């Protein structure tokens, strides 16, 4: 059983949760346990963590990408 953590900035609606669950099952099979976490720190968007893999679509992650671009150059 793989734990899938879905992090959002605001409470997701149950319809949204279902949609996410469906998408994850499509890719990783039925053997998952979905956990929803609300973390205002990510500002907006969504982070999905499957085991030790993380798909980061949060505003915080994107701002971080911008920062990296400028710090490294």
């Amino acid at each position, binding site marked *: 059983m793989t734990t899938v953590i879905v992090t959002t*900035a605001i409470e997701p609606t149950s319809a949204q949760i279902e949609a996410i669950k469906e998408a994850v099952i499509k890719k990783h099979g039925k053997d998952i346990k979905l956990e929803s976490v609300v973390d*205002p*720190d990510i*500002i*907006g968007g969504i982070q999905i*963590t499957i*085991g*030790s*893999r*993380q*798909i*980061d*679509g949060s505003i*915080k*992650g*994107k*701002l971080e*990408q*911008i*920062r990296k*671009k*400028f*710090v490294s*150059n």
Partner: protein
Amino acid sequence: MVLLKESSNKFVKNLSATKVLYMAKLTSFSTLIQDIEKLPLLSQERTVGTVLSLGDGIVEADGLEKAQIGELIDLGENQLGLTLNLNKDKVGVVALGHTAHLRAGDQVYGTGQILSLNVADDIIGRVVDPMGRAIDGKSEISTGKLMLLERIAPGVMTRQSVSVPLQTGIKAIDALIPIGRGQRELIIGDRGTGKTAIALGAILNQADQNIICIYVSIGQKRASLAQTMGTLEARGALKYTVIVSASASDPASMQFLAPYAGVAIAEYFLDQGKDVMVIYDDLTKHAQAYREISLLLRRPSGREAYPGDVFYLHSRLLERAARLNKEHGGGSITALPIIETQGNDVSAFVPTNVISITDGQIYLEADLFNSGMKPAINVGTSVSRVGSAAQVKATKQVAGTMKLDLAQFRELQAFSQFSSDLDEKTKAQLDRGLRVNEVLKQGWDAPLKMEEQVVVIYSAVNGYLDKVKLESITAWEKAYLEFLHTQYSTILDSIRKESKMLDDVITQLKGAIVTFNDLHEEWMMEA
């Protein structure tokens, strides 16, 4: 909404604080906005781990399933870590910077990047840290090639034996313990016996030898490094030198990485077919930094609490010194590691390891140093196992029997302390030995060219100094070289060009020394 505003405000503040420099370069704020708009901001996938515990610069994290050994881990706040332990359920990461912002439960990310540093031609003349970042306050190193810190040493088929000399400019070394390009020669001695001075002297002498020098400073005081840098700059040696520094106040992980960074920079130039000399100052502190990390990672400890792989730690580093053959560019890396002993104990763990890895040692002794012998090289116990194949013919001609003569002299000297009346022959031998020994004294910052060394040693071993007062020999040598440079420069030119002493040059030189000695009655002993 308020939250969003607050955090983005905080972020912009952060951004402007860290990138003041970048902002200054921008013509206006609008170009910055345009730059940001052009960035492809996609959702990204990465490996994530959770911090289980942290302390003393060691972070233990679970997750990070795909992490490799030597992979850089993003610890957040622009800090990086390095994976050193991989377990089934957790990863041991050593922080390369501070970890003050981390808490247990925080997330860290894999970067998929194996530890490497950026090297470009303009790194020459600069001071960098083991990550290749400039720390001398000048501009950043331009983007060149990424060099792996851990690279496998060149194989057997790519190498050739040592055949070109590396002139250190120090008479005692070039004549008796010659070093060849591609060799690994250890400099070993107690603290304050002039180990660093020999290394710096060797750097100073490379001004016209077409060698790039890399000085790796490990765990030294920042003040000493500033002094070293000042000396090199003042003597014009920084033009062909790179300094890699992990000072005493840097984390142990940086001190551990510094020598590998040094040799990685050397390999960048080796790949271009150039000759490089790397000085590791010193590997004792390097082993200690590695011991610290190993103990904190709870690896089993062995002799002197060093971990089991401390031999491999140094052998894999020093094996990367090489002389490549023509088909592989013909470049070389010469390694001069330095080891500091305690109370002259060369049988301690780390000294014996490095002695057995290297192709020879230069022993420095505190007793010699205190008796005024500078450089304090014990020529009796110092050896060079491969360098004699590379020694210049001219030096060989004059120094051939010198080592034996000096050994005999020392034996006689010890023996003669017991008896007061010596026969004439013994006395003459003692006098000769004293003078040859005196000639080996030399200021560390006064390297001599090969031809200068040859003419000085020639006069000493052939008895032209027997009449000179012992205390006047330093003055004699200085004036003698000046005399030859002004009046007999053809002799020096010939030795330099031919790399050996031709018969007619020897005759000329004999004449020159006699003329010079006649001019300087004041330095001669009364008959």
